[in-house]
């Protein structure tokens, strides 16, 4: 029965993104006592140390956690972060205006949104979601904006013509996904 408890505890450590304390583990497993769990944790830790894998179990912050060996850190650090930052409501609205009304100048976006959008436009440019398409032959030669290929990619669109209509976007309550 001890083997099974060991693997249960292992599965909890495996799934958790945070270190788990013996107490936390005990609370998840009614009927098991703390001593048993501590013993099993130590056992697991020793096992992985001998196993020669790319990760092992470490005691950190009063808890236990799977950790990769420092040797592999540089490779892991190269991985693109899997959580793309979310766009705020305001950024999304600005992006929507550009997507639907492109090519468009900033003054026109501001007329539609009723507020200054220069910092939002800068942010969208930085994220690679919009780009400078050209300049308008108007006084001041304002910059014209349009969306990028990355925009299509991020919003999972085949092309610009498959943009949902504004009404559909509202219905879908879009915006969270990104």
């Amino acid at each position, binding site marked *: 029965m001890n083997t099974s408890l060991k693997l249960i505890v292992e*599965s909890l450590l*495996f*799934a*958790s*993104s945070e270190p788990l304390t013996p107490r936390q583990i005990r609370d998840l497993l009614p009927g098991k006592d703390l001593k048993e769990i501590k013993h099993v944790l130590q056992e697991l830790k020793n096992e992985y140390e001998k196993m020669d894998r790319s990760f092992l179990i470490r005691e950190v912050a009063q808890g236990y956690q*799977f950790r990769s060996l420092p040797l592999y850190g540089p490779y892991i650090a190269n991985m693109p972060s899997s959580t793309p930052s979310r766009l705020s409501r305001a950024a999304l609205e600005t992006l929507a205006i550009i997507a639907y009304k492109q090519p468009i100048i900033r003054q026109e976006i501001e007329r539609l949104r009723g507020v200054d959008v220069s910092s939002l436009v800068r942010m969208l440019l930085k994220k690679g979601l919009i780009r400078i398409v050209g300049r308008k032959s108007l006084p001041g030669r304002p910059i014209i904006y349009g969306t990028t290929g990355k925009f299509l990619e991020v919003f999972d669109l085949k092309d610009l013509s498959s943009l949902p209509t504004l009404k559909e976007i*509202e*219905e879908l*309550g879009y*915006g*969270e996904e990104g």
Partner: protein
Amino acid sequence: MTFTTKLEVFEGPLDLLLHLIKINEVDISDIPIATITDQYLEYLDLMKALDINVAGDFLLMASTLMHIKSKMLLPKQKDDFEEIEDPREEIVRSLMEYMRLKEAANELASRDILYRDVFKRGIEMDSPSGQEDINTAEVTLYELMNAFKMIIKKKYPDIVLRFKAESWSVKKKMVEIMKRLKGVKNLYLGDLFSTMGSVSEMIATFLALLELVRTGSINAFQDREGSDIRLEAINK
């Protein structure tokens, strides 16, 4: 009263139909349509009696069933060349398809589903569900149904609703609604029904409306919860 305990189980009219076929132990390819139709309508009445709102889809199926039933009663005229189609054929096809899809859903449900049966590394907190700050929402048939009930209640407080629309052609009403919507941008549900003289006409109109919404010819909107429903033609 075997139904009462099962009330919420039915996902839709097809689900209910399958249930009836099952409890009657009849062959799906040879459905005793009169019996099944009666039981189906009984069920809808039961729902109404229990003050459960009957979704529009259930009513549409009811009219389909009644239509098939009446067709079955007609004497068969054997044409030498053309084979007469069994009026039940279409519904049997739908039912078979629906069964296949339930099977597909079972297949999916039986897999090792992530976050139900198996887990990957790094369980994170779920992101809070998005705020739905949309002020104009598309209404469901369910809400449309409710709105219609209110209109009838106001006009005929004593009447018991029975959704039989034989005397008025639903098709004709569909054409009429589209015509009225042609010239204008919006049409409010209240206005649509305000000119009608009889309950049966209103029901036919309502069934026509459901059909138009279902087929995507018109959209129904509600600007605020409880406000009158606004109909809009979808421009082609």
